[in-house]
């Protein structure tokens, strides 16, 4: 039987619904377009097409968090300019003391947080001190961030969806009579999601939501959450908070709690967010998104012990949670338990995660767990899987292995290769510098170390190495400068302290 005859007998709307259910969204939109051509006033197919188009570009708003430079610096929501230790995400270093790893053991990101095991939107980006600094931070393809979140990815999402429609946008929002739609709840909700997710027209979405929530006598939590989403996008966090709190009075939903915590995180009140998460957990015990949320906040506050504890709890409820496994593995790796980390990474591999990062981590774990036979295999696979973005990191780590087995020649070449694939790789510059220093090429070493320090001012290693180098050739002033910078990055670095004491003695002797 031909495919056509079977489907021809069927109601096209039914077929479109079936396509939608099977996530064949384009086919669904296609059928709806045909239906709408026959009858432009067919609300059902209009609604279905809107849903299909929205679903094509849908990203869960809870996860979308892109903090632009302008938002960060024009932030007038911070409660305190100088927050008390451990109460702010902006000063992550303040809570060192309970379970926080030192930068000597675990590398730091630019924001002064330990490198995480899992990349998430918005968490690894630094918070530069001033606008000038933010603009001047080296903007490479890998670190570029939008100036404001009103630009950047959101706009791209909006325009990209329009490209696929040669006749222009499906719904002309400017011509819509929003109050008319607000009266019809079943249309309005679909329309809102379309305006918000597909068109990214937050202002009109907000207007529709405001009218609709009025229409249902402020009793529908869903509209309040949508209002909050719109307010959040517009940077009106306090209004968003108000709406969400009101929504919580109507009904307990996981999403409302998540949005509320997102607002508190943006307001830089991590502890309040944790409280809300905990309250939500009482209502929804074992909800992994909530547990993960708390764990992330602890991780960002440098409280690794608590974070790992929570990640373990996440695994209790969902043992396939990649983020939790990766973060625990990273923690074990940096607390000198490569064997345990290896088990976690191996589990990820068995679960079907198959990328260069994982193999790199496996290789490192194997090496430190003294399973040398597997190390090179893992790195070989990592290299074959690596993309342009992470190729340099893979080579950099191979360089480490080479240093570990004492093959300086190989190490040098690896670091050079890392630099060839990404010439902003500060860590590789530092290590090449150290190798040059050992070879006695003072000038080259200095140049490399200076390059590293310029690219990554947050790292203490290039400063320290440069300080030592300057000391070696007798440039005490430069040495002092560099060592001071090194101590800025890592105040408890004892080697830097020793050198500084020695320098001070020397200066006193002068």
């Amino acid at each position: 039987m031909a495919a056509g005859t079977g489907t021809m007998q069927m109601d096209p709307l039914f077929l479109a619904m079936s396509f939608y259910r099977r996530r064949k969204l384009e086919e669904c939109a296609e059928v709806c377009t045909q239906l709408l051509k026959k009858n432009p006033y067919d609300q059902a197919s209009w609604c279905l097409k809107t849903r299909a188009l929205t679903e094509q570009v849908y990203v869960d708003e809870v996860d979308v968090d892109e903090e632009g430079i302008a938002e960060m610096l024009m932030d007038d929501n911070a409660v305190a300019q100088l927050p008390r230790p451990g109460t702010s995400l902006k000063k992550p270093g303040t809570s060192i003391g309970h379970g926080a790893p030192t930068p000597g053991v675990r590398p730091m990101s630019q924001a002064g947080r330990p490198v995480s095991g899992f990349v998430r939107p918005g968490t690894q980006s630094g918070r530069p001190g001033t606008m000038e600094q933010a603009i001047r931070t080296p903007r490479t393809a890998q670190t570029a961030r939008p100036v404001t979140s009103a630009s950047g990815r959101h706009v791209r999402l909006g325009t990209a969806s329009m490209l696929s429609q040669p006749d222009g946008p499906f719904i002309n929002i400017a011509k819509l009579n929003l109050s008319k739609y607000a009266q019809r709840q079943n249309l309005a909700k679909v329309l809102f999601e379309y305006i918000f997710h597909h068109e990214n027209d937050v202002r009109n979405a907000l207007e529709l939501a405001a009218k609709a929530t009025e229409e249902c006598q402020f009793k529908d939590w869903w509209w309040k959450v949508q209002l909050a989403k719109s307010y959040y996008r517009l940077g009106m966090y306090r209004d968003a908070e108000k709406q969400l709190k009101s929504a919580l009075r109507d009904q307990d939903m996981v999403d409302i709690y998540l949005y509320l915590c997102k607002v508190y995180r943006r307001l830089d009140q991590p502890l309040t967010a944790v409280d809300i998460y905990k309250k939500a957990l009482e209502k929804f015990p074992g909800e992994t998104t909530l547990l993960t949320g708390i764990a992330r906040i602890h991780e960002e506050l440098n409280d690794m012990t608590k974070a790992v504890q929570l990640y373990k709890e996440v695994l209790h409820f969902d043992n396939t949670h990649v983020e939790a496994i990766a973060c625990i593995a990273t923690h074990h790796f940096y607390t000198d338990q490569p064997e345990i980390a290896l088990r976690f990474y191996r589990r990820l591999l068995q679960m079907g995660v198959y990328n260069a990062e994982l193999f790199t981590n496996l290789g490192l774990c194997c090496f430190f767990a003294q399973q040398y036979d597997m190390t090179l295999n893992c790195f070989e696979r990592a290299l074959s899987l690596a993309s342009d973005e992470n190729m340099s990191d893979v080579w950099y780590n191979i360089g480490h292995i080479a240093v570990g087995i004492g093959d300086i020649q190989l190490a040098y070449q690896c670091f050079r290769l890392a630099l060839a694939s990404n010439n902003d790789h500060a860590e590789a510059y530092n290590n090449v510098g150290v190798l040059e220093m050992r070879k006695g090429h003072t000038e080259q070493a200095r140049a490399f170390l200076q390059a590293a320090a310029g690219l990554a001012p947050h790292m203490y290693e290039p400063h320290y190495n440069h300080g030592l180098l300057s000391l070696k050739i007798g440039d005490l002033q430069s040495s002092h400068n560099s060592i001071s910078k090194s101590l800025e990055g890592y105040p408890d670095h004892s080697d830097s302290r020793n050198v500084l004491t020695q320098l001070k003695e020397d200066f006193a002797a002068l």
Partner: protein
Amino acid sequence: MSLFKARDWWATYAGSDEEFDQGCLCVANIDNNSSHFDKIIVGSYHGILRIYCPKPPSFKPDDLMLEVQLQQPILQVEAGRFVSGVDQLHLAVLHPRKLAVYIVSAVSGAVEHGNHYSLTMVYEHILERSAFNMTYGPFGRVKSKDFMCVQSTDGMLSFFEQESYAFGKFLPGFLLPGPLTYVAKTDSFLTVSSSLLVESYKYQTLAVATDANTKEDIGNKKVSGKKLTMDWSFNIGEHAVDIFVFSSSNAPLSIFILGERSLFCLTETGSIRFMKKFEYNPSCFLPYNSVIEGTVNVLLATFNKTLMVYQDVALAWAAQLPHIPVAVRVASFQELKGVIVTLDETGYLHCAYLGTDPSMMVTPAPESRDINYEEADAEMRELQKEIKESTLSSELLPRAQQREDLLISVHVPATLDPVPQSSVDDGDEELFPSITVTVTLKSQAPSPLENVVLSVISSPPLMCNRSSIVFPIIGDRSEPVSAEVSFYSRGGSVPSSLKAQVTATYLANSEAPRVAQTDINFPMNVVCKCCAPMKNANHKVTIDTNKPPVNLAEIFSDMVNDAVIPMAAIGIQYYGGPVVTILASKTSQRYRIQCNVFEGMWLILCELCKRLEEHYKKTKDSVQFRASFMGPLPLQEYYELIDAHFEQRLNQTKYRELLAQRAQQFRTIQRRLLARFKDKTPASLANLDTLLDGTYRQLLALGEAEEECERSIEMVASNLSCGTRLLNLLIKLWTNMSDKDFEILQTVLSPEVSESEDQGWEEITDAAITHLLRTCLAKSAKDQAVGLAAMKIPKDTSKLKKHLALMCDRLNKGGKLDLSSQTGEPFVQQQLQKAVAPLEPLSEMQEEEDETGQLQRVQDGTSSTTDGSLASEISDTESVLSMNNSKPTARLPQLTHPKKLLPDLNKRVLVNPGSEEENMVLKGIVDAAITNGISENHERAL
């Protein structure tokens, strides 16, 4: 993402090229066999009904018990007690316009594989409206009967009490049909509407509500009677995929709603029991009995081919499936109970059970090759050698290609244009002559080159009329393409170069971007013309030669009207610029060039030397022509140029700092204003708006000033460039430098004054000169140890001047720049030795002496500088003859302390004295380098 794979038990393809969805799968003991084992019933959108009785290990044709083509597509199949008076399971099949109930009976064959089923229709209902889905159950709490309810795509619920049609009701506020189910305990129907609500309607309410057969009645609210109201509703906030009611003895009755992103579990009264948010798209689900009291298990399949088993909210098991199911059921068969039956949209029917088979994810092996260790070693050695060679030569430049695809040639005519082109675009009062150059592009490539962009760069005041030309296509070499570009002087300043650069960019046939370049050398008369010589001028330079003076008119024949008339002096004026006068001494073999502007002399001097050389070449004299400069070098004038340039740069940084400051102020005010505007209670702006406006104007003014500054930097940079060329030329003449050395000098004291954000000419030149002083011009080991400062804008130019003077002095004393011819040693090694040198212990006394001595010398130096400059100024104003008398010895400014070390050098004193300490430091460096520099593990996240 799962660790394990669902273990295959039995699988088959139900049909091909057919479509299936949610309702197409039903599992029941449909033939009412006494053994109570389940059969799988599958109906397709193409109207084919199949019944399977699976027997492992794999599909055999006799597993298919029935295959029947029905008239209409099958939307849903259900098994229930649909025939009155019979307590057996019957099969209800929902078609778009028909609801049919069949009885399935087994026909046993002679042999085992002869068993098959037969299908007999019991009754059918013709549906007026296109059906969407159906549910069944003991509506109205009837005993051991199942009634059916069909939902149409336009929202009408039709109730069938077995063979008879009961009534139909429209759902209020309907838009798109959602999943539908019946809750026996409360005798109500559940659906999820388009307003994202779970709605519950009592069967009672539905039955007694106003009968509305047509939509119009509802819309016009004409009919009286009870309006259909819902029992309760729950807002789930998302669209639902499916809905199930689960009740068992050891768990409370739960209503499961699978949303697009979450799973909700409600109680029968519509309050939430729990919910679970997903990180993936679920496709279908099925609740089933849990062994633990009070919990319910849920089987959930996802669009990434995973089957999850949740025990309430905790994930109990995850297994990989071979397909994306649209429907999932649990069946018990003769061989195995609790088999998971899944069906995907193409009709792949899969029966599986959970087991610890590892997931299918097998990492593909990396391209394995048998390593021949000897060959690999040889290759490795070869590669190492190559790497070593390439690092030794330290030239990271790629080797030039053998053959370029595109050749550029330029033809500069000997004469200027008859009509100046400059008049075409600017209507200035003064018209300067132009020259039209023909640029010819010739393709060497086998296939035509497309979109070749030719860009012309000329340095001011030279202008060109077309800065960019696009050639759509350049064919083979027989047809070269050419373009005419006119150049003219804009006037007003001294040109820093008589060259223009032509660059063609194109994509080679291998899609690689390529560049072809060439220079255009202009004749002198493009920028200057002849004029009357001037007697007096501020700056003078005298050149000695070893030949009798020549007729200047003959040499500059292109500048004067009549080359025959001998001239002892000639004046040359830059268009819109200063006049340079050349005087040829009648008696001595000297020429003097004088000009009011120092940098203006370079072009004339350069031309003069060049032309004299050519002139004497023609005479075929045995003695080679030599020009020389007796000094002193006009360093003071040159310093002024440097200072002018440097001052403008400092101005620029100052402006930038101010701009940054004001911008910050601007943002701060903006923030304050924003806070005010956001405030719910309106407060006065407290003049913030005035402040904002003022700051804005300041910003604009500063921006303009900065731009102005940039323009003046361009100006002074051009002057500096001219001055540098002049100085380089004079140094060459003064020290009688070879061409090779001169080339190096040109790169060190570069006439290319370029500006970038973080590096300016001063620091680049200083670094270059310092390098020279440390290497080829070094006097002692001490000089070689001078550390290079970081490249940043210096506080003042005194250091640069000092180094410059020092370099000139050493060059004068016979320093050579081109080392390769002398030593023949690789450069790197030499440097290595030098790098080690400073660590050799020096006696403290000696160092101190050095330091104090140096201090004195510095003081001497400053005083002598003033003396020296005065002296040179005096000598400048003297006549040619008296100048000849002045000694070209150490009258140079700031050269009086040739032994002066660079200040950084003193700082190494303290490491040296005790060798113990030195060892310690050395050891510390090595240790530290290993423990801290490298051991850092760079972990990239997933």
